[in-house]
């Protein structure tokens, strides 16, 4: 069967391109506008969510206790949606347009549909915020049935999800068209492969989201009379948990990207890294069970099988990336001559380059704190001493905020010169920002985890009201650690917003002439990121990385087994 003319054939092509002077990549001007629109929306929502974060932290910090309970729970609802959904997904959409067009020299298909998707998402997100602020949906992010919100709240979430789903399908449409039009040779780049993983995860995540929110919407308008609380939880977490794995896959892709931009790191073994992404694809959605481990009605076998991602194969994926990304960075730096001992490459790394410091801080906080605590509290029995305590927000603020958000922030600094085509202003702020934000989030997470270990519940306005025997007085200290950390992190957030808004509004309009912002005159991606030869592989072994990951595993094991010890000390229960 000969298919010679396709609706998207080159003859019908009317896309307008510019050529990036740094990378020589072709940029479809429509895709560029879509990237800008989505990135701007993302930044608007992180600003809003960040303001809410400050208010919440200043309330849970008992010494200040700022908001009243009504506004605490209201702001908490909006904070969850704006950060976990709006900021993340808008940024990821920008990333998906970038990955499926610019990185492949390809064009954006059906631009009108992409704009419709953007409008749906924007309207949905605004609707949710308005309804929550009006006090008609004080149900928190999870909206657990039978807590009932205004139907418009569910509708807002559904509109946003439909828009996002369209973007995901457009990503694949772009990929297919790029392949047919032969815009690139051979396999897609690893970064695009990672984004494709995120997209596949995203599609079934959003379908499960529909399975949770559509019945909830029908229930809120009275069409469905009863909605089972346990069933809703199962469906909701089929959406809520994998949604974070979309962020994970997107973040790991950004890590590979930052490694290439800042030091010219090339993946040492494409197979190794790609198989790790495939592990996410097959196993990570089982992790939805982490939220149902102490729910009634489910047995050990179901809980243990799902919580372990079928033998922790999704964790294996992350452990592979935990090795392969720093190893790629190490080998790149060793090739540049920093090859003495185990760790000279680390000392000589470009620590002033925001993309590099972002990569390191994001990986360390995500892995050492977020990953380790996540696997531990997601263990079936250990969950009994962790469920719904502040240890949970402590875990996911390390993953989603210190990990993903920081990675996205770091990438923004490179998007501005390349896509917005504005000179970055306040470069010295950009240089320090990842450190300030990371340092703050470290304290936030540790403060939360330490409070949770002492029994402090999450989503709770005032724990001192509870009788004196409930939690020890030391929680005042650990909550203060969280509060002070939040102040530092918010400072980092303000620095980010200042640099981004300052650059977009007032930065000099010009074409970028190099990729790195601070360090050197070279373009590592263009000049250094060359495939490894066989002799390179022999000469430059990532020995330092191997030592680091072994240390990581020992830390992991120590935390993990100390939690079993902790569990063994409580009352007998079965």
């Amino acid at each position, binding site marked *: 069967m000969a298919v010679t003319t396709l609706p998207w054939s080159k003859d019908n092509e009317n896309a307008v391109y510019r050529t990036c002077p740094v990378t020589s990549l072709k940029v479809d001007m429509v895709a560029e506008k879509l990237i800008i629109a989505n990135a701007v929306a993302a930044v608007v929502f992180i600003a809003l969510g960040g303001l809410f974060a400050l208010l919440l932290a200043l309330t849970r910090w008992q010494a200040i206790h700022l908001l009243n309970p009504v506004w605490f*729970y209201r702001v908490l609802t909006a904070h969850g949606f704006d950060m976990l959904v709006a900021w993340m997904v808008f940024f990821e959409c920008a990333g998906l347009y970038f990955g499926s067009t610019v*990185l492949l020299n390809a064009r954006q298909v059906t631009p009108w549909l992409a704009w419709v998707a953007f409008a749906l998402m924007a309207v949905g997100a605004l609707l949710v915020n308005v309804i929550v602020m009006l006090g008609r949906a*004080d149900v*928190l992010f999870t909206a*657990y049935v*039978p*807590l009932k919100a205004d139907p418009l709240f569910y509708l807002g979430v559904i509109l946003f999800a439909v828009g996002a789903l369209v973007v995901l399908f457009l990503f694949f449409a772009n990929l297919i068209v790029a392949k047919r039009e032969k815009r690139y040779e*051979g*396999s*897609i*780049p*690893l970064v695009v492969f990672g984004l494709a993983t995120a997209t596949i995860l995203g599609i079934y995540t959003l379908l499960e989201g529909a399975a949770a929110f559509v019945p909830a919407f029908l229930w809120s308008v009275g069409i469905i009379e009863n909605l*089972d*609380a*346990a069933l809703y939880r199962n469906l909701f977490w089929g959406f809520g948990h994998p949604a974070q794995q979309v962020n994970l896959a997107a973040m790991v892709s950004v890590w590979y990207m930052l490694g*290439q931009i800042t030091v010219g790191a090339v993946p040492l*073994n*494409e*197979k*190794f890294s790609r198989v790790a992404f495939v592990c996410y694809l097959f196993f990570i959605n089982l992790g939805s069970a982490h939220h149902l*481990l*102490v729910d*009634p009605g489910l047995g*050990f076998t179901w809980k*243990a099988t799902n919580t*372990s991602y079928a033998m*922790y*194969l999704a*964790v*294996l994926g992350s*452990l*592979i990336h935990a*090795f392969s990304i720093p190893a790629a960075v190490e080998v790149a730096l060793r090739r540049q001559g920093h090859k003495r001992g185990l760790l000279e490459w680390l000392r000589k790394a470009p620590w002033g380059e925001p993309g590099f410091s972002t990569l390191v801080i994001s990986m360390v906080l995500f892995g050492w704190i977020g990953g380790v605590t996540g696997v531990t509290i997601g*263990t079936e*029995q250990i969950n*009994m001493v962790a*469920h*719904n*305590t502040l240890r949970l927000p402590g875990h996911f603020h390390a993953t989603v905020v210190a990990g993903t958000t920081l990675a996205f922030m770091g990438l923004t600094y490179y998007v501005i010169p390349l896509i917005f085509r504005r000179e970055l202003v306040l470069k010295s702020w950009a240089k320090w920002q990842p450190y300030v934000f990371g340092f703050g989030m470290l304290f936030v997470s540790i403060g939360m985890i330490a409070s949770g270990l002492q*029994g402090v*519940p*999450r*989503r*709770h*306005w005032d*724990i001192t*009201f509870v*009788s004196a*025997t*409930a*939690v*020890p007085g030391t929680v005042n200290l650990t909550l203060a650690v969280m509060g002070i950390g939040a102040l530092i992190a918010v400072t980092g957030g303000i620095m980010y917003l200042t640099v981004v808004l300052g650059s977009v509004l007032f930065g000099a309009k010009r074409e970028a002439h190099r990729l790195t912002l601070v360090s050197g005159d070279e373009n590592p991606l263009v000049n250094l990121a060359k*495939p490894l030869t066989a002799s390179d592989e022999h000469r430059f072994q990532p020995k330092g990385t*191997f030592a680091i*990951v072994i240390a990581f*595993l020992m830390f992991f094991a120590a935390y993990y087994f100390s939690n079993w010890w902790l569990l063994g000390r*409580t*009352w*007998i*229960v079965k």
Partner: protein
Amino acid sequence: MLTPEKMWWKPLGRLEKNWLLIAFIWCIALTAMMPIWFFFGRQNVPATTFRTNPEQFKSKVEAFVAQYQVGEETVNGVQVPVVAPPAGDVFMWARQWQWYPILQLQKGETYRVHVSSLDVQHGFSIQPVNLNFQILPGYDYVITLTPTTSGEFTLVCNEYCLIGHHTMVGRILVTDN
């Protein structure tokens, strides 16, 4: 970000292979710990659950309280009965914003604590023991508990249940034999 070489399906390097092996062994250890603890550990997640509904469960709790009530205490300005049951079945409801009744248990005895919600979802959190369970309307969750320490314990609600959520506290008193 760059298109890989044509043939990228290559064997792993030495360190990659070693790390993969170590990581995989760790994953097996993580998996194995759960069944090991299931058979040998003393703290396992309760699984016994019965279907119920708020009316039916409420009357069960009321009958239970009538049978074993030994006193009354004020919690948040409301009189809540104190109940001292023998080892065996114990019933408690969660509702906005109250745990009912107050339990007086004996250290070392085993109780089958039935908990269900009369309205929205709640979180059953015994402090400072720090044992936490999810409580849902329509499900009678049977938590088989053996207190191993004595004293006064607080029941906190750790699932958001609307505006009075943080006021929802209950008590468990454990006496020595």
